[in-house]
């Protein structure tokens, strides 16, 4: 079959299926559609307002307004490019090597390279649309701050198209090479060791900035530092540089210069695609075959070696060592940890989430502010708490919410244990809460130390983070069981095997919205007692005031409600649950 005819057929079928998915929204609950629509609208309006205010503020900086505005754009596109490469790698791995559809396509009378090209296109769309959707308010705000015409946005579409193709091709190339030449287990450990080394390197070699020198010419130093640190985004070989430069040129009315960057992007996107598709001829099928030959190896003991029932590995030994765990709880925890660790797409996303959070925390010491000022230290520490908890909410929604649905058809196995599904639910709650609080508490303590917060503030924030870990996990596990997404159809097509799809339903959206609302209330409650001091510009409190203690008690009660309400409702629902 000719390549174009194959793509045409697939495009038609996928458009038909997509149309039906959109159409099926009418059959779904109005509440769900309304919640999602409201959430999107709020995000767009709030995002636009925030960026518009920020850009206008930057524009007013005498002599440097335009430079700062442009630098923000270079920074944004540099990060977007990195995120797109990661996103393409993760989605590309599932789409190219794990999807049932790919296996089916490989048995059709079409060239392997055609299958690869289709999957590459599909990955590009899946990996990029959310970033473009999320960045839209910022782009609109930039346009408004620059007072551009409608043509600017139309031309921007031209720049975006080749821009998203380059990270897609790059991500796919990395995945092809890794799959072809590295065993999954080797790759997993290589990534783990590289990540750990990177964190160690950041801790040891990234020196905190000198505070003393900043006090004299603070504003100029801050700007200098910002411009100096972000100059890496001005490397003319970066695709993010081309797209930002093209955008700036078109924003300023520089038609020809904008066109030059568009053509640079286009030619590089075409070249990247050509290299990737050519490499796929050698690597895709070999990699696919190799990938699907590995699963059996891990299941089978090496020749001549017998598996002894009493053999203990590190995980089992650790769980045995933990006091107070029943045999059933140990088995359930071991099962969840193993399933998670063996699902490459799950833990790789998890590592990226926490990696970003870690980088953010480590970067705090390089933020050019005077930590000797209690005002800024407190201000940034509250922002820090907000950022950490929002990331935690994303994590619990993405990884904890799908846990119950992921059991899917296997529920009968775990549901038959003494204590039934209720026990499963609480085990999932404790496991996810403990994992979440260990990581977030560590990051929070590190960041508090960097901000040189007083001991009582550090304790307050650490306590809040622990509370939030439990609260957010309670929300995610409870709503996950109240609104499970088991999918329908045969095992091969069942949605319950794909956590990302489980989250995309009503329950996932509700979980995220409720988590954000919980965070907003907690942070507001903690900030309120300090608000008058924030307004006066100096924080003088040297110990917790009664109002602050009252706020913290409120947070404890609210967290209790965040755990008990969804978990209680879920437990009640599970009593009548039919396996």
């Amino acid at each position, binding site marked *: 079959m000719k390549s174009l005819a194959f793509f045409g057929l697939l495009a038609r*079928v996928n458009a038909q*299926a997509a149309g039906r998915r959109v159409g099926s929204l009418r059959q779904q609950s109005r509440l769900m559609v309304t919640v999602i629509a409201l959430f999107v609208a709020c995000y767009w309006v709030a995002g636009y307002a925030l960026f518009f205010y920020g850009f206008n503020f930057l524009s007013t900086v005498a002599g440097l307004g335009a430079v700062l505005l442009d630098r923000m754009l270079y920074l944004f596109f540099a990060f977007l490019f990195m995120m797109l490469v990661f996103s393409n790698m993760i989605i590309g791995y599932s789409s190219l090597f794990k999807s049932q559809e790919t296996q089916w396509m490989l048995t*059709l*009378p079409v060239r392997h390279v055609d299958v690869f090209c289709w999957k590459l296109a599909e990955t590009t769309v899946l990996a990029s649309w959310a970033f473009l959707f999320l960045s839209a308010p910022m782009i609109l705000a930039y346009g408004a701050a620059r007072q551009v015409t409608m043509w600017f946005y139309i031309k921007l579409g031209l720049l975006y198209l080749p821009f998203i193709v380059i990270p897609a091709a790059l991500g796919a190339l990395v995945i092809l090479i890794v799959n072809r030449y590295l065993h999954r287990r080797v790759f997993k450990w290589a990534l783990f060791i590289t990540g750990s080394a990177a964190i160690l390197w950041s801790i040891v070699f990234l020196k905190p900035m000198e505070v003393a020198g900043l006090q004299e010419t603070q504003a100029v130093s801050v700007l200098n530092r910002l411009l100096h640190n972000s100059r890496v985004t001005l490397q003319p070989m970066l695709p993010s540089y081309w797209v930002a430069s093209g955008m700036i040129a078109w924003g300023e009315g520089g038609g020809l210069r904008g066109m030059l960057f568009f053509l640079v992007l286009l030619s590089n996107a075409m070249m990247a695609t050509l290299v990737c598709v050519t490499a796929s001829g050698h690597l895709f099928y070999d990699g696919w075959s190799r990938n699907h030959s590995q699963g*059996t190896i891990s299941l089978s003991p090496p*020749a001549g070696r017998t598996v002894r029932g009493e053999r203990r590995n590190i995980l089992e030994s650790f769980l045995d060592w933990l006091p107070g765990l029943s045999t059933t709880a140990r088995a359930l925890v071991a099962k969840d940890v193993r399933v998670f660790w063996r699902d490459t797409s799950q833990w790789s996303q998890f590592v990226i989430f926490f990696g970003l959070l870690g980088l953010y925390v480590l970067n705090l010491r390089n933020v050019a502010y005077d930590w000797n000022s209690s005002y800024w230290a407190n201000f940034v520490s509250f922002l820090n708490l907000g950022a950490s908890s929002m990331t935690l909410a994303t994590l619990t929604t993405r990884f904890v919410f799908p846990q119950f649905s992921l059991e899917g058809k296997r529920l009968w196995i775990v549901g038959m244990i003494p204590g039934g599904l209720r026990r499963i639910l609480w085990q999932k709650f404790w496991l996810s809460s403990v994992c979440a609080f260990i990581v977030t508490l560590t990051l929070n303590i590190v960041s508090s130390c960097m901000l040189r917060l007083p001991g009582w503030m550090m304790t307050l924030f650490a306590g809040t983070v622990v509370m939030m870990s439990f609260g957010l996990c309670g929300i995610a596990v409870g709503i996950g069981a109240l609104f499970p997404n088991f999918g329908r159809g045969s095992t091969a*097509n069942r949605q319950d095997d794909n956590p990302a799809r489980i989250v995309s339903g009503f329950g996932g959206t509700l979980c995220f919205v409720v988590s954000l609302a919980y965070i907003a209330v907690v942070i507001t409650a903690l900030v309120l007692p300090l608000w008058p001091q924030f307004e006066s510009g100096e924080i003088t409190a040297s110990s917790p005031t009664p109002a602050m203690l009252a706020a913290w008690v409120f947070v404890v009660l609210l967290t209790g409600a965040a755990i008990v309400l969804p978990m209680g409702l879920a437990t009640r629902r599970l009593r009548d649950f039919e396996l």
Partner: protein
Amino acid sequence: MIQTEQLTKQYGGLTAVADLNLDIAQGEFFAFLGPNGAGKTTTIKLLTGLLKPTSGRILICGRDIQTDSVEARKVISYVPDLPFVYDKLRPMEFMMFVGQLYGMDRAEAGGKADELFETFDLDETRDQLIENLSHGTRQRVVIASALLHDPRVIIIDEPMVGLDPRSARVVKDVLKARSRAGTTVFLSTHVLHIAEELADRIGILDHGRLISVGTMDHLRKASGHGGALEDAFLALTRGEEEATAEEAPAK
């Protein structure tokens, strides 16, 4: 129609398929049996070109599945044990799509699909999305779509799982009729009476090795059991287990 020459597939240190030599003729109904983990699914994935052999080669209608894969796959239909379908399509849309993927024009695919709908009793599902069909009905849709382009070789893995007795009868009849009409059928199953009922020849794989291949009579003689296939199968695979166990200490 299906020929394998010294076909071997190794996963690291494990040999999943070892020196497999098969020669399955046109119109032959070949049943492929073996205990769990014997290497049946690996063999099927090798035959369909999904996996690359470590050594040896596979010819489908004289075409090498590795070097001339597109041409070889044109004449194959593969129905896995967990088949993929597009949930948001209707059965007829899926059939038309598959037909076109195999180069049929819409009129030809539509005509054939109508016939298969009648054969597999799928008329009532025309207006439903595949996601709303039961497992058995989906299985019938998949098998029907696999027959649409009149393949010369059908490779089918556990086709009867989830089918009600009537549907199972239809599938068996259709496969047998196709085989009589000249299509080669390669069926992998654990349901021994299906192999006994339908197959012209039966191959038994154990620990990646083809331990016996032939007609029912041949297997009975080879196993020393004159009864049902079950007895012959158990005797042959037990013999292999014992042989493997004896070899192990010697290593």
